[in-house]
């Protein structure tokens, strides 16, 4: 296990300069590309002196490296800058909106993993037979239909034809949100003992999470299936078979485990698609999360907001990838040890 931690440490060390590079990239882009954020911040009717004041407040009157330096200074004080869209510190926004997105992505990831496992295993077990072909068709559809199209389709179906799931927001109307304890509304509902609210939130999450998960699910199901088909013909499977280990055990142990490694590896990419697609899906379902906030700051050219959104997503992505690496290293002992 120690080897794995060393490996993780290495990964983190490698990723830090990348994230710093990312911060420079997006910071420079946000300041260099044409735009007048102060004007946006001031509102439509503000006089010039107000705009100047805001420009000063945003340090836009200073050279860009000075701005970047102060960005770091502020960051060390826990301040990601003033949002011209929400008119408060971006830090507050991140704290407010991020948990909702994480919670949604988490559920989507659960759907994705369970769905991919189920479909992939069925297809692998019955390779080249009807279930396999059905899964293959499903997988191609899953991969080809963009998540926002899924989102709209579900909305169409469930909003009008089968009004089973809500298609908007996080709570039913009139629900008073649970007191903010962790920021994760599901958790908060449980902590404050409001099971009905918990159920209500979960109920609101199902469609967006499902729409979000489908693409990645299809992708992973395919990879698991391919892995199983490939591993079935491996010599090491022939060996355990030759020594009389029953087929069930061979399948669920000696074939499944190696088939999961490539799937988990690809999951890093899948997380990227979840994080990216969350932008459209949260917009469609009006999910009060970080991605919808991201769209809004982008549409309003809120430079500090944009920088924060990109970086926070970069960090989440990095963390997720490291988790994926750890899981892979756990599944495949060769990786962690080779690295050390």
């Amino acid at each position: 296990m120690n080897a794995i931690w060393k490996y993780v440490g290495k990964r983190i060390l490698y990723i830090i300069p990348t994230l710093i590079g990312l911060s420079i990239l997006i910071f420079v882009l946000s300041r260099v590309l044409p735009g007048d954020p102060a004007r946006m911040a001031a509102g439509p009717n503000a006089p010039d002196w107000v705009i100047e004041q805001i420009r000063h407040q945003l340090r836009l009157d200073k050279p860009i490296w000075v701005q970047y330096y102060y960005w770091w200074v502020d960051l060390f004080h826990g301040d990601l800058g003033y949002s011209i869209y929400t008119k408060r510190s971006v830090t507050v926004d991140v704290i407010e909106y991020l948990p909702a997105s994480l919670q949604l992505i988490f559920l989507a990831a659960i759907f994705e993993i369970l769905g991919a496992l189920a479909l992939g295993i069925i297809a692998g077990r019955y390779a080249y037979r009807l279930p396999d072909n059905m899964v293959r068709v499903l997988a191609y559809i899953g991969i080809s239909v963009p998540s926002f199209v899924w989102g709209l389709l579900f909305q169409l179906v469930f909003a009008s034809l089968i009004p089973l799931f809500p298609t908007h927001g996080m709570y039913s109307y009139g629900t008073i949100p649970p007191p903010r304890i962790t920021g994760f509304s599901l958790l908060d509902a449980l902590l404050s003992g409001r099971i009905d609210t918990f159920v209500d939130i979960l109920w609101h999450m199902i469609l967006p999470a499902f729409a979000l998960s489908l693409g990645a699910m299809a992708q992973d199901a395919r990879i698991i299936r391919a892995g199983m088909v490939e591993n079935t013909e491996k010599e090491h499977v022939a060996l355990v078979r030759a020594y009389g280990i029953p087929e069930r055990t061979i399948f669920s142990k000696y074939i499944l485990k190696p088939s999961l490694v490539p799937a988990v590896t690809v999951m890093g990419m899948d997380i990227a698609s979840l994080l990216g697609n969350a932008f459209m899906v949260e917009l469609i379902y009006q999910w009060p999360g970080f991605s919808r906030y991201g769209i809004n700051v982008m549409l309003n050219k809120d430079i500090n907001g944009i920088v924060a959104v990109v970086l926070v997503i970069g960090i989440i992505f990095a963390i997720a990838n490291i988790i994926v690496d750890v899981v892979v290293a756990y599944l495949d002992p060769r990786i962690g040890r080779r690295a050390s």
Partner: protein
Amino acid sequence: MSFKDIFSEWIKTIELGKKWYRFRRSPLSMIGLIISLSTVVMAVFAPWIAPYPTHAGFFTDFKNATQPPSWQHLFGTDEFGRDVLSRTIFGFRYSLMMAAVVLTLVVPTGVILGLIAGYYRERWIGKLIMRIADIFIAVPPLVLALSVCSLLTPSAFHAMMAVSLMWWPWYTRLLYNITSSVKEEYFVYAAKVTGASSFHIMFKEIFPNAMGAVLTKVTLDVGWVILLGASLSFVGLGAQPPTPDLGTMVADGAKFLPDYWWISLFPALAISYVILGFNLLGDGIKDAFEG
């Protein structure tokens, strides 16, 4: 050695006949080819295929707005009274154009940078290129593309530029990996010993080994670029109306769900159709090169 010679040699190394034979035997690949070709045909000949070509431009006919699908308008009409089918056919044009522009910019850039980075893996130039590529890959491509687009004025051109900016590192990475492994092979040593130039080694000895992978990726990427472009325009940061962009059409029509479902549903299916086609085609090419 002229570039033309190198090129013809590349073509030779592909062994088209053999690949085609392998490709042809998979029905899924053939379906992919047919779908992809059909979208290309629709895109190229849109003005002749679309029943109402003028509806792709500045056209309004409010009296015939929001008509459900009928024989006259197979996909119905939108809130402007424009034929959704015609606009969808033109939509392929913009989607494929986007893919073409982006990939034309990105593939050579990414490939050359990847070759250099892989070839000079131990030197600062190789490390620098890969470090920069890592920065662009550190965030899901859609997020960075959205940010860049949002900082510019929304237009199809800016969307293409933003997507291109996000996309080259994937080719750089691909070529870097292939180059790094191929570099150790004997034929590269042999070429080096005989005094071949780095240019020669990169393009004549190493690159042909990556052709299959690059071709596969390009094909699959047609679908992904279209998806990314559609996502950008879905949010409103892509092509501008009245350009019949599929993503914009979906987003605009979404306002009228569920009553006038056809306005967004058909363009949405069209996006899925293109992506499906190029996915199947890409997988087919991959199998042909690997199998």
